[in-house]
């Protein structure tokens, strides 16, 4: 992802062409580009499509996976559903705290990682599970978590 801000008009144009007036897919598409839903973009979307702003806001606040505040570069979701809880997701959360110093709902001060908990990722067979940047990891031990996070950090360092 380049650091240059993507062109709002262009993104909206493309999204509307693709999804029509379906609010949630539109929002998802926008979020893919900005990593969250910036207020000005939503206002523009409302003007462009004629969807009342309140409806957009309603959907954006309703779903947990849509964000109205800026997100970190890397999103860590650790499952704390029943199965994962029993199989030790608490340990994974502790491990993330050890490595990054953040608890659930928090973001590292350099804006690189956000940790969030979710209730069941729908893959209990591989519990405890976690999702980092949309990629699923299962059957995790705290050691695995440390490894995955270190790898991401190394990669980021190399890119810089």
């Amino acid at each position, binding site marked *: 992802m380049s650091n240059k801000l993507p062109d709002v008009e262009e993104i909206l144009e493309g999204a509307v062409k693709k999804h029509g007036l379906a609010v949630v897919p539109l929002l998802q598409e926008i979020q893919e580009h900005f990593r969250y839903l910036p207020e000005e973009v939503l206002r523009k979307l409302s003007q462009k499509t004629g969807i*009342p702003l*309140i409806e957009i*806001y*309603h959907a954006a606040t309703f779903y947990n996976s849509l964000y109205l505040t800026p997100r970190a570069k890397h999103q860590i979701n650790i499952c704390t559903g029943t199965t994962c809880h029993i199989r030790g997701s608490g340990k994974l959360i502790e491990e993330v705290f050890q490595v990054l110093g953040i608890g659930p709902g928090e973001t590292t001060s350099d804006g690189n990682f956000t940790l969030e908990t979710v209730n069941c990722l729908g893959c209990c067979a591989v519990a405890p599970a976690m999702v980092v940047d949309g990629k699923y990891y299962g059957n995790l031990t705290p050691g695995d978590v440390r490894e995955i996070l270190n790898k991401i950090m190394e990669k980021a360092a190399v890119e810089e």
Partner: protein
Amino acid sequence: MVQMTLNGLRVEVEEGMTILEAARFYGINIPTLCYHEGLSPYGACRLCLVEIGPSGQSKLVSSCTHRVEEGLVVRTHSERVVKRRKMLIELYLATCPQSRVIQDLASKYHVTRVRFTPRYEDCILCGLCVRMCAEQMQGKAIGFAHRGSNRKVATPFDVKSEECRLCGGCMYICPACQSRCQGPQEEEPLCNACLNLDQPCLNYFDDNMCFMDPCVACELGAGREAKAKSRDGRL
């Protein structure tokens, strides 16, 4: 036209009506909180519930959203319905005891206690203001945001909405922000200053026997005898 049974009476009503409209057409008063003639039905408050279906297999539905059908059997004031309705009013009282509309409902339907901790919420999420704004005022300035226990009525991004024309329609229709008249015990969650009589017939029959509003006849006449005879003397 469809034929249906309303509180034991065979009646004919227009197709496509809701049960609530049909009942009101025949002069039967069903209490509502989230319903308004000029707005689309929403089915949120459940106060308008009625019992449908043959006894034994009956179920409770919200009459403001349920359409009439051929052969439908409806009871609007059965014991089951009245009991539930009172419970709902009690819950609303605990949510929003400062609302005059809810206090009036409590007095009218003889709810004389609140067993829950009063919460003094500003909103009961009936959605009247949202529909008013969208449907009558063509504003769409307010709507619901968040969900579950965090659900609330809000403007986009919680700042003053550009669509809002300050018409005041939302305040006009809001049942929660009409404040109580300064009756006795205004500190209490329950006012009951205009308390109506309880229907004595429900202690003997499964249904309301008349639709006097407020109930008065039996309590002053026949009701007295009934009271003397009643099993628990609690009428």
